[in-house]
C-alpha cells in the first residue's frame, strides 16, 4: 500500500491537482479507491476555487525540472536555490547550507554553538545552531533555501524554526530519513 501511495502522489504531480486540498480533506485515506474518489471530488470542486486565484495556484509538491513551471524566488528557479541539510540525530543536530552545485556556504552544529554532551540533544540547541547557520549563510548572500531533514531527533523541527528566525526564507521541506530496504543490521535492542 505504501508503494501504491507513492505512485499515487507522483501521479497527482503530473495531473496538476490541488494536492493541498487533498492533504487537508479530513486525513489522507490510504485506500486507493478512496484516493481516486477524492481526486474526482477535488476536480469537480476546482472550478469554484478559480475565483480565489492565489489559493488554487499553490501546489503542495515541488516543481519538477522537466515540466516548465513559472515559480521563481528572487529570480531563481526551484533547482537553483541553495539547500540546507539538517541531520537530526538523537544526540546532536548538524546543519549545513550548500549551493545547488554542492559548494558549502555555512556549517554549524549544536557542538559548534558551545553546547556540551547531553545539552546538544535538545531543541533549543538545534534552534541556536539554526540561527547561527542562517546568519552565516545570509552574510554569503543566501536568501531562500530548500530544507532537507535527515533523521528523527529532538532538533528536527526547531532547526527549521531557527533557520527562519535567523533570516533565511524556507521555501520547501524535504524528508530524507534513510530507510534501508533491510540493509545493515542495527544494534541490539536495549533492555532497560
Amino acid at each position, binding site marked *: 500500500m505504501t508503494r501504491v501511495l507513492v505512485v499515487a502522489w*507522483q501521479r497527482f504531480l503530473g495531473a496538476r491537482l490541488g494536492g493541498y486540498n487533498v492533504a487537508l480533506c479530513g*486525513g*489522507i485515506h490510504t485506500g486507493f479507491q478512496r484516493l481516486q474518489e477524492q481526486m474526482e471530488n477535488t476536480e469537480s470542486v476546482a472550478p469554484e476555487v478559480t475565483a480565489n486565484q492565489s489559493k488554487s495556484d499553490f*501546489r503542495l*509538491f515541488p516543481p519538477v525540472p522537466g515540466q516548465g513551471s513559472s515559480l521563481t524566488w528572487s529570480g531563481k528557479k526551484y533547482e537553483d536555490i541553495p539547500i540546507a541539510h539538517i541531520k537530526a540525530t538523537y544526540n546532536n543536530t548538524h546543519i549545513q547550507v550548500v549551493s545547488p552545485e554542492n559548494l558549502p556556504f555555512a556549517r554549524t552544529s549544536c557542538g559548534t554553538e558551545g553546547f556540551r554532551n547531553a545539552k546538544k540533544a535538545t531543541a533549543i540547541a538545534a534552534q541556536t545552531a539554526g540561527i547561527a547557520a542562517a546568519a552565516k549563510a545570509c552574510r554569503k548572500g543566501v536568501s531562500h533555501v530548500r530544507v532537507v531533514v535527515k533523521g528523527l531527533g529532538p532538533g528536527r523541527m526547531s532547526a527549521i524554526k531557527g533557520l527562519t528566525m535567523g533570516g533565511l526564507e524556507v*521555501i520547501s521541506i524535504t*524528508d530524507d530519513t534513510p530507510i534501508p530496504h533491510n540493509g545493515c543490521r542495527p544494534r541490539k*535492542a536495549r533492555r532497560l
Partner: protein
Amino acid sequence: MSHHLKFIARTVMVQNGNVDAAYRTLSRILTVDGIIEDAKRRRYYEKPCRKRQRETYEMCRRIYNTEMARKIAFLMRKNRQDPWLGC
C-alpha cells in the same frame, strides 16, 4: 535519496512562509505512509520472534477496532430524532 531523483518524493512546499503548517503536513504524510514508525522501529534490531508477535498483535488490534467501529456505527442508527413524536 542519492540514487533517486532529489526533491521529488517526501517534499512539501511552504505557503506564505508558514513553515509550521508545511512541517505538520509533511509529518502527517509521513505517518500515514508509515515511514516515521518504520524509522523508529529500525533504530534497534527487532528479532524475528518479536516481529512475529508484534504483527499478530497489530492484526488482532486492527480486527477488533474495525469490528467495534462497525458495531458502534450500527448501534448509532438508533440515536435519531424520535419518529413517533407525540404518540
